[in-house]
């Protein structure tokens, strides 16, 4: 499923680029995610996502974007009563977001920048594994996302970006640690951007 999704995203973007040969950008970076659900934080704490994304402007200010977002975290199972044992668990999630964005161009201290607002949908494939047992859970789900980003065009083809992103990943499952499980949260990201015109 993941390979197919990558393939689909790849074909989609290069088709768009071929049809609309305008500004194309690639971003790579990382950051921190603050999970919105307490049970996620109990088990895994904050997460540290890595991101690779590509965007293309279809008009001067309007474009679409997609990529891959990867989270891998270690944690430990939470005792429900007086238990003293340690059970390490591992969580990983690969997300493929597809979004539309609108960019407001501007300048800051002589540096050209673009403020981007976007919204979209993301496909998430996730797996939780108990490291001392052959016990795991995996599934995939769709969830919405919204974000705001600022691109600092330091050079003509290379820049720096920072963004804040909110994602919701409702799994439809209940946790004994409390409530319905949502793997989403707020991500603060930063990284390098490459621009092709």
């Amino acid at each position: 499923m993941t390979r197919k999704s990558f393939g689909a995203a790849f074909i989609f973007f290069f088709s768009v680029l071929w049809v609309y040969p305008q500004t194309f950008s690639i971003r790579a970076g990382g950051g921190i995610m603050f999970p919105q659900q307490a049970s996620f934080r109990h088990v895994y704490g904050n997460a540290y996502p890595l991101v690779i994304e590509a965007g293309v402007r279809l008009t001067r200010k309007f474009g679409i974007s997609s990529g891959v977002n990867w989270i891998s975290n270690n944690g430990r199972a939470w005792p429900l009563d007086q238990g003293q044992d340690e059970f390490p668990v591992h969580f990983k999630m690969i997300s493929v977001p597809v979004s539309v964005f609108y960019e407001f161009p501007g300048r800051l201290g002589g540096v050209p920048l673009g403020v981007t607002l976007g919204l979209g949908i993301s496909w998430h494939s996730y797996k939780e594994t108990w490291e001392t047992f052959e016990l795991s859970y995996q599934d995939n789900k769709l969830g919405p996302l919204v974000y705001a980003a600022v691109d600092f065009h330091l050079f003509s083809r290379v820049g720096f970006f920072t963004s804040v992103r909110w994602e919701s990943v409702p799994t439809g499952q209940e946790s004994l640690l409390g409530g319905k499980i949502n793997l989403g949260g707020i991500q603060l990201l930063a990284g390098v951007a490459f621009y092709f015109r």
Partner: protein
Amino acid sequence: MKNLKILRPFVLLGSFILLSFYSEPVYLIRIPKGDPTQWSLLAELRVDVAQELETCFIARAPRDDFRFLRENGVRFAILDKDIRGKEYFLVRASSRDELPELQVQGRLIEVESGTLIGWTTAEDPSSLIPPDVARKPLPTGSILSYLRRPSPSVAVQEYQAVKDNLVQFMVDLVSRENLRGLIQGLESFQTRYSSTPNCEAAGDYIFQYFQALGLDPAFESFPFGGAYSSRNVIADKRGETDPQKILIICAHYDSTSDIPTVLAPGADDNASGVAAVLEAARILRTYAFDFTVRFIAFSGEEWGLYGSRNYAAQARNRGDDIIGVINLDMIAYANLMPEDLELFVNSDSEWLAERFRIAAGEYSGLRANKFVDASMVYSDHAPFWDTGYPALLGIEDGPLTNPYYHETTDTVSTLNFDFFTAATKAALGTAAELAQPVKAGYPRSPTRLTAQTYGYSSLFNTIRTVYLSWTASPDAFGYNIYRSSASHLNYQKVNSSPVQSTAFVNTVLDADKFYYYVVTAVGGGGLESNYSGEVEIEPILASSSQGVSRGASSLEGRGKR
């Protein structure tokens, strides 16, 4: 005006007294059974459940609780708006017309097909129900703490028995002539209707029979019907290894008919059951068992299960560790041959019927049919259900086909002794298997098996670690640990080689299932003891009362620590 001020404290005091006399009426309600999570929801809401039936619960609730119930998705129907001063009976009747007296003096409502609930404020309500109509008084206490989710039935259906030659030897000692003689002896009292001197004389007869076998019987007196009392007769074959664990084989010795105080021979109902119990006592008393076998002849059954209600309530108060109850009621009439024996159980007792069904086939060649039916509450097994003990009813037919049932013509000449002997053998074989014969040369079973469990949860999965410990068995070189997801059935060994210590830790990965553990001692030459007593591990349920959702979890092996 000053005089009026003086009156104020008295007015206040009067109001307070009036208020203290006022109590909110409590309603009788019917709650249709829902999915398995309803069990835990009722427990969480602390609903005062008085009776479990096949399709519904009968419960008591003040009006204030109604909104609370509705908010939590519990549907219900009101049966009666005020329970004060009333006694309620469940009645098995084909129509309301069978109960004219109760209809005149009280009320009668059908709560499910074939089950009516009636109530009256009369001083002796049992007298309003014709003596030949089966009835069960509604328990006055809550049975909520004994309600559990149904155990998974898949494992129950896969049970494979191992035939025990010693048990077969015991079964082969059942004597058709003894059974005939015992029925004739009980029939000779003319009537055994509780409240008559003849019934008490029959109780003495049973007592003396136990005494003659070398057992040490005891009477247990209980009141019933306002002005009467009667006696249960109890005798023990004490267990050699773990005597605190008790297997009960029982039957009621009282009888009834349409002229109960004059003539109620009750050969099938229920001299047959009592004769089987006495014959089992005659044979089993000479063998040694791990667990205690308790033989009980109850009285007051035909009045409304008074003897067994009294016994079961006291057993629960004492904290008796009852493994299971085999209640035999009408096991000697065959409307056609080969006759099957019907086994009625509630969901918690399904394992017991399965063990009986297999033992019947193995040891006596009798076909026994299992029915999980919580509405079959008209014999002495029902009070054990109400107090959380596994119990089964063994009966020739359900619904009954005996035309002499509760008639003055229910005599020994109407019985089929081929069927009766086979049914007795089946009951004896089941009792002997469950009590576990002690065999020479084999190590004794471990005792006092206890389990402490801890739960751990990740986001999507929950596991439990089970810490087992037990008391050492003499001459044991090691121990094997067995686990099952169905009580008393299909245990699977969880250790790869015998464990040297008297403790073991096991991890179970399916948190929403019941698990059951037993331990055996391994002696010289690899001989293995009988199972220890069983411990139960309850499932972990989500706080929202929803069972743990397993989603696409993969459970591919046993964990290690």
